[in-house]
């Protein structure tokens, strides 16, 4: 893909051995993110989106096997040795996880966790690290940041904890921030504030971001590009506006249709996707969405559609029967 990308994931596959056989969590994915850009990765539980982010961060479980290349800033992270990786990933790559209660250390104060990160990577003395910590907490919208330094995670609300996690992630001025379901555990009003905060800090720092979510509503209007994943593969990838205007992949369409709409009258039956995703230890011959797809035919069950860029180099999809009607006329 484009040579100027900050991160490019090239033909990455992740295999996990399980008692029931090999589980292919990520199935030959290609993706790239340019500097300062935002990529949304959307999919249901078990579609491989979190495993893909862990492959980028080199945080895969020990038994997992990774193939392919993860090029970040000119280096292949999958082939870096531990110390080089530590240096690189600590300074330039940061991550915010779904649950701030488990990603923060419950027995250390907010201050200790922030100051520790700053001192480990930026060689600051304690006083300036402390000053920097207060600035960071203020930047992420935490009231009375000075006092918060001596508080423990359990003394803060879920939204405040997530702000602390973001402050820690931003502390070393990363070039790429991976936000893995950062708002799933939060209320809708707090979700809006956290997403705004991420967007604001991203613009200010000219940082690239990967926003992983199961909610198409979260990526709309907040990302430059979206990749939809299903059963370990990217099944559609397009600039965000193009995706919402002319989605081609029946799975993307079904995912969007299944979201209850505020405009719809009460008691309107929802177009649910029947069944559930395939067992990842028993891959299907054909298209992995075929058992749930309403456009399925014999070919879909025999042959796996490749991710093609027939539409335009920007807009790729993996389907033999792409939707040809503008969205809105479909549902």
């Amino acid at each position, binding site marked *: 893909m484009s040579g100027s990308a900050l991160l490019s994931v090239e033909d990455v596959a992740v295999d996990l051995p399980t008692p029931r056989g090999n589980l292919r969590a990520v199935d030959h994915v290609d993706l790239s993110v340019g500097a300062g850009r935002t990529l949304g990765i959307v999919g*249901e*539980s078990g579609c491989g989106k979190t495993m893909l982010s862990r492959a980028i961060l080199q945080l895969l479980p020990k038994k997992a096997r990774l193939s392919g290349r993860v090029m970040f800033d000119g280096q292949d992270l999958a082939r870096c040795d531990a110390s080089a990786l530590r240096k690189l990933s600590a300074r330039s790559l940061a991550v915010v996880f779904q649950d701030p209660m488990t990603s923060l250390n419950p027995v250390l104060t907010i201050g200790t966790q922030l100051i520790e990160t700053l001192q480990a990577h930026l060689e600051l003395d304690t006083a300036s690290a402390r000053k920097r910590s207060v600035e960071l907490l203020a930047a992420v919208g935490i009231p009375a940041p000075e006092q918060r330094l001596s508080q423990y995670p359990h003394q803060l*609300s*879920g*939204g*405040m904890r997530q702000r602390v996690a973001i402050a820690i992630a931003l502390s070393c001025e990363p070039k790429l921030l991976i936000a893995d379901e950062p708002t799933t555990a939060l*209320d*809708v*009003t*707090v*979700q*809006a*504030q956290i*997403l*705004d905060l991420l967007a604001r800090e991203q613009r200010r720092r000219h940082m690239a971001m990967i926003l992983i979510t*199961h*909610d*198409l*509503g*979260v990526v*709309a*209007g*907040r990302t430059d590009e979206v990749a939809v994943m299903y059963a370990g593969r990217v099944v559609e990838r397009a600039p*965000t*506006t193009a*995706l*919402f*205007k002319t989605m081609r992949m029946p799975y993307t369409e*079904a*995912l*969007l249709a*299944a*979201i*209850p*709409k*505020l405009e*719809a*009258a*009460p*008691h*309107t*039956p*929802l*177009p*649910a*996707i*029947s069944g*559930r995703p395939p067992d990842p230890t028993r891959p299907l011959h054909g298209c992995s969405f075929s058992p749930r797809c309403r456009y399925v035919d014999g070919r879909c069950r025999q042959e796996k559609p490749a991710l093609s860029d027939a539409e335009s180099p920007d807009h790729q999809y993996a389907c033999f029967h792409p939707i040809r009607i503008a969205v809105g006329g479909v549902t």
Partner: protein
Amino acid sequence: MQDATHFQGLDPILKVENLVVEYAVGGKTIHAVSDVSLQIARGETLGLVGESGCGKSTLGRAVLQLRPAVSGRVLFDGEDLTALRGEALRRMRRRVQLIFQDPIASLNPRRRIGDIVAEPLVIAGYKDSRERQELVEEVLNAVGLDPALVTGRLPHEFSGGQCQRICVARALVLKPEFIICDEPVSALDVSIRAQILNLLEEMKGRYGLTLLFIAHDLAVVKAVSDRVAVMYLGRLCEVGPSEQLFANPAHPYTALLIEAIPVPDADVRPCESVAIGEPPSPITPPSGCRFRTRCPRADQRCATEVPELRLVAPGQYAACHHPLA
């Protein structure tokens, strides 16, 4: 006193009158539900929305008397549940069932599905095991599960969506009249969520149910509710017919909740920070209107005077000194 008759003219199955529920935590009092009144008509679905900690789940539990009320009454079919004890309360509870948020955690991992779904029947005194089995099979079929395949299996063998179907079956097996659904789809994926919402709607029609549907997602609530009640920090802010409440919210908090919903449309640019801050502590709720610390319209009066629910449009009530036009 709040107006307890938000739904006049129809036959109410449940009336909650000036209900107060408090928790004592470390010498302090959490004001979980403060002077809430509402009614639900037979066959109606009332959606109850609000942020975490607003008291919506406590209200649901207090209806079932799983949480003792400090004061107020809960009238189910004319009978005051707060006055019932022992066997009389247990008999009443057969008519009211509960479905929880986490379908996997609410099923005993060591029991077989057939036993889990039959348990309410055992407790209710159905002695004939043949009859129990027939009722279990009937209800499993109704929720879209094949009894022959599921009764002998354990909960871990099922996905989240299937576990929620089992929970729905367990709630339905005694043929209740009223079901309290506490965030029944929050833990489920988008595609599975739609299946369960459709199932609840179908079961409501088939069994003639009345539902209290508690959730924090307004779009989900609107999809299934005839009327919606909005709660904030233990108090009711607004009640009204779903369509009308979403089109013309009168309470600024309702408007804020609606604006915060992410819209799956790339042309709709999310507006910056519609929401201000987070809810204050229910241990020391603000004086006057509890929403005033986050409200853009708040003034002096809001700090001193508790707003009462007032009629703002046909069927729509809001507790606000400065309702939106």
